[in-house]
């Protein structure tokens, strides 16, 4: 399943400073949820210091998640079922400026 994953607000620093990633998630028997995606990101995209991105099987508090420009808090957070061509963005609020 092809989706786009983006990191910004400073979160991209943990991903080789690359903001946009076109991703092809492997087929599996059950639906892909954001919870699954986070683990996949940890194993496949995350370059360093996973504790700055993940905490207790979710994103670290202070990192915002949007699915197709909608706050994931309106979509069930970790349980949201990912659809093909979804654009999932992680924005850090934790970085200064």
């Amino acid at each position, binding site marked *: 399943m092809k989706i786009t994953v983006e990191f910004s607000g*400073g979160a991209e*620093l943990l991903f080789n400073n690359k903001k946009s990633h076109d991703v092809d998630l492997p087929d599996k028997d059950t639906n892909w949820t954001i919870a699954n995606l986070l683990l996949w990101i940890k194993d496949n995209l995350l370059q360093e210091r996973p504790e700055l991105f993940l905490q207790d099987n979710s994103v670290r508090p*202070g990192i915002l998640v949007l699915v197709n420009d909608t706050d994931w*808090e*309106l979509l069930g957070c970790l349980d949201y079922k990912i659809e093909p061509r979804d654009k999932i963005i992680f*924005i850090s*609020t934790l970085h*200064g*400026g």
Partner: protein
Amino acid sequence: MPSKCSAKCGRNAVLKRPKTGDSLCKECFFEAFENEVHFTVTKAKLFKPNTTVAIGASGGKDSTVLAYVLKLLNEKYDYKLKLFLLSIDEGITGYRDDSLDTVKQNRDDYDIPLKILSYKDLYGWTMDEIVAEIGRKNNCTFCGVFRRQALDRGANLLKVDYLATGHNADDIAETVLMNILRGDVARLSRCTSIITDSGDGIPRVKPLKYCYEKEIVMYAYFRKLVYFSTECVFAPNAYRGHARILLKDLEKIDPAVIMNIIHSGETMKVSEHSKMPTLTKCTRCGYVSSQEICKACVLLEGLNKGLPRLGIGKSSKVKRILEENEKLKGASCNGEDNKCLCSGNDLKPSKFNDLKI
């Protein structure tokens, strides 16, 4: 299925507000966010008309949103403010280039004039020069102290009527926590104020005081505002970082903790019996200080006299060294060389006159 906007406009909601729990569409969110800043500005009577406001601009999310919203409200509600962006260049090679580029883009995008002051302008030294003098090991002391005062000194130098900064609700709640953890009662009673004075009569104002960090970032995202993110504020061992992690963890459980902490800070009263440090003004630069001479002036004196370690240790020791210096050198260092800032308010290099504000 996306949920509908709580304002019943018929559009789909795009975010859940941490402050109210409402689900709002983009348009209703913009309106709510801007109206709340306007309410904060008018309720606290932050600005008088026909005045000049320097917006402390770092290129980061908070100051970018502040500049955009203030400009918008100034036009929409006719505040009659002359706005300009004030940025500080520390003079660390390669460090500010990106964020200053962002500020320059803010200037062009929002059509707000920009003034960049360097550490050289403010203190007579760039950070690179300080590092060369003192070595890498101790430059954090300088950086921290100088950075804290830089915008204040800049505002004073430019004789603005107000200095507006982008402190948001999360920042203020974090500072309340920090002051509690440190037992700093004096700062605790001041840190929630929406208007503060650093000793020179120029009010420092925080129009985003009640804005959640999440909403600031969402606002910037949906308005497509360009901002710059520096390295993680969770620098290892940073004391503030711990307060911030605690706060973010609590906020995840209940976003209301942010407002609750600010509210607690605002309503807490210091007992009349408690011993408070007397705040006075630095006799050199006039900046508010608990010592006779503020830390920045002590550090500057050390640099200017070739004793850069001055001010890094204890303040009693600093005072003794200073007194010895005074005896040795006789008169004050005022006018001894052009690097001296001891003349404080009198410092008016001609290049500041070209500021069009």
